């Protein structure tokens, strides 16, 4: 009897994770695409050397950060995949979204300053929830994108 109950609970959680997770992801991607289209004319490079003909009144450090967490379905899928090895596709979209969000926030910050280009863009990713006791906790990660915005 306990077996059936725990199986049903797990199935419900998985289904909730799958449906709500997919919906949230779709919404986020639509939002990302929209904002990226708006901010496409704010250029980013990870070079340090500025253009020879640059006109810049101010150079400001801009940072964008985002924290993304997984849902129950991704958690289960990644656990199973890590038993067999190979690419964990469940996390790829999660990390992609997080990074793009961080870049967008950095660009938005630069846009409020009136900048047109950001140079020497760098990334950092930090994985949170590193609790080693018991079964693996829900994975979440913080993404930072930072660079120097050139205000003309």
């Amino acid at each position, binding site marked *: 009897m306990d077996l059936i109950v725990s199986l049903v609970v797990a199935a419900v959680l998985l289904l909730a994770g799958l449906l709500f997770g997919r919906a949230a992801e779709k919404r986020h991607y639509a939002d990302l695409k929209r904002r990226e289209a708006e901010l496409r004319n704010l250029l980013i490079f990870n070079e340090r050397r500025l253009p020879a003909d640059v006109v810049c009144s101010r150079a400001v450090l801009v940072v964008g950060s985002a924290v993304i967490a997984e849902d129950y379905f991704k958690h289960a*899928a990644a656990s199973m995949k890590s038993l067999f090895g190979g690419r964990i596709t469940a996390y*790829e979209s999660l990390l992609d979204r997080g990074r793009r969000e961080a870049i967008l926030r950095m660009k938005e910050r630069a846009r409020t300053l009136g900048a047109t280009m950001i140079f020497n863009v760098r990334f950092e990713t930090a994985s949170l929830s590193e609790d080693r006791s018991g*079964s693996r906790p829900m994975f979440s990660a913080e993404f930072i994108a930072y660079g120097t915005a050139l205000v003309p």
Partner: protein
Amino acid sequence: MIYENPPLPEDVNVSRDSVLGEFLRLLVALIAIVAIAGTMLYFLGGWLARFVPFSAEMSWTGDAVLGFDLQEARDGESTQRYLQSLADRLAAEMELPDGMRPSAHYAELDVPNAFATLGGHIVVTTALYRIMPSENALAFVVAHEIAHIEARDPIAALGGGALLGLGLTLLGRDAEALAPQVAYLVLNGYSRRAERRADAAALEAVRRLYGHAAGAAAAFEALGAHEGRAGRIPTFLSTHPATQERIAALSDAAADWDRTSQPLLPLAVSTRD
């Protein structure tokens, strides 16, 4: 010098595979592997455990009945002696190996149950004894437990469970979450085989002792009737599943029973309380 940011393709860093499809495939593969590996580990553990000599098992447990808090029945000495003599007579018919002598215990418990544990100890509860309709039924139950001891089932279950647990731990923390369910399924499947073997050996034993195998089915019927009255599953039936085929097999064994020339014997020690 041209500085620009052309739009980049969406699908480079993200795979567009079906997430649900892959998940289901992995789940099926994982369940299959755990089921197969679990059964193999349990079987291997049992096979290895049977190499431990019975003398070692006996000297290790001594008089203790492991896995059970044994309360000797009040005023049960005569019943205990009766059970022991019955076990001895059955053991003689079953031609147990040298040094294997089952010890019978009569335990105070209001749940009908009988089981065999490490070291050749057999326990019969007061509740089971009281509902046995005849000595033939009781003898079948005792012979069934002796058959488990002869097949070294207690120590095999211990070894199998240990190896299965070890295997699941090695597989990782995620497999540990599945552990109770896997253990339940593996034990259920395996124990049916052991139970059928013990039934067959017990039928043979009572046939040799009494000349017929009637009364065996009566033991299960009595337990089933008790369940109907008490409204809960007797422990004996839940750990010794009384499937239709099992009862049918026992009834078939009594097909050649001649009721008049081979009467069923009453219990030697009455259960008047």
